[in-house]
């Protein structure tokens, strides 16, 4: 279990990061665990096959958007665990994430304020691939305990 971060531990500009390789195997595991994606997958194969992806003009199969979101969510919940609270997670999907992309995950502290006695942290979040693109960008608002 992570060591609990407190509001007073946080500085503006502080960055949390991790890496993730979006392998085909992990995508399949995600699809298997999320049956709501089954319908889309049956229709075009964009998440699993090169052929399916190419019919949509994509060079390789892509990750489901909710998988990118869940990868990002894990970084955030790892940061605030065990006693922090996730208030808001908002993402903009700006480019596709392809199978086998090497992803740098980042959460950058852009504001830290006390609101109604609560330690509120605002984070800019991003997935960045090794082509220098940020397919997913967004914001998160979390609450950390105060000492």
């Amino acid at each position, binding site marked *: 279990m992570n060591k609990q971060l407190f509001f007073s531990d946080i500085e503006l500009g502080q960055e949390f990061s991790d890496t993730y390789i979006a392998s085909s195997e992990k995508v399949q595991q995600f699809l298997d665990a999320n049956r709501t994606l089954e319908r889309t997958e049956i229709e075009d194969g964009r998440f699993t096959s090169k052929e399916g992806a190419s019919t949509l003009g994509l060079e390789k199969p892509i990750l489901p958007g909710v998988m990118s979101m869940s990868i990002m969510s894990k970084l955030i919940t790892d940061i605030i665990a065990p006693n922090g609270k996730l208030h808001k997670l908002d993402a903009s999907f700006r480019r596709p994430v392809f199978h086998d992309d090497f992803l740098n995950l980042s959460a950058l502290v*852009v504001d830290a304020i006390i609101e109604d006695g609560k330690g509120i942290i605002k984070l800019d979040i991003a997935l960045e691939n090794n082509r220098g693109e940020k397919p997913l960008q*967004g*914001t998160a608002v979390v609450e950390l305990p105060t000492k």
Partner: protein
Amino acid sequence: MTYLDLHAHSTDASDDAGATIEGYLKWCVVRRQKGYKIDGFVLTEHRSFDLKITYDSIADKYGFLVLKGAELETDIGHMLVYGLNKKFVNHFDLSDVHLSHVKLIDALNDIGGFAVPAHAGRPSIGMAAYVDDNLVEIEKIVAIEVLNGGSNNEENARAQLIANKYNFKTVGGSDAHFVSSIGKCVTLFKSEIKNEEDLVRALKNDNYSAYEEQSK
């Protein structure tokens, strides 16, 4: 000298943005403390321009410049436009995603404004493909955005090649939609810029260039 980010979006008017003006300003303070060069930014909201709104008060509070422009959509990709006035806003439907770049630039010249093709090296929404297809009235273009914070290195390199080929001036803009992107790419002006009139005058007449610092 003035270092300005010429391309940014906010939650005030861009539905895909997650940053407030004050959020950007706080981050500008952080960047300056870290040694990055930034004197302000221009809000270029998607397909809209609010004639009435002014950011002078909050900009002064943080000691940066906040100017207004817009990012419009034309038949050769997106264009950053500066120096807009009531006449221009009333003449064009800014929400139109197929504006004629020729008519747009002519109208801007008429009111003393300025247009810059945005993220020029990107497919579809940048002008690169349209240049290849001879769809761009080259002589109407003065400067293009060759450093765009949302483009990859290859796309920015393609934009720089176009600038070199046609001898365009170059600008940089972060295309920030989120706080921590502001100032990632800027434009270095030799002159001091204090308002939108200064900006347009500099874009038309001065020496300037896209500027990107390495991470500190």
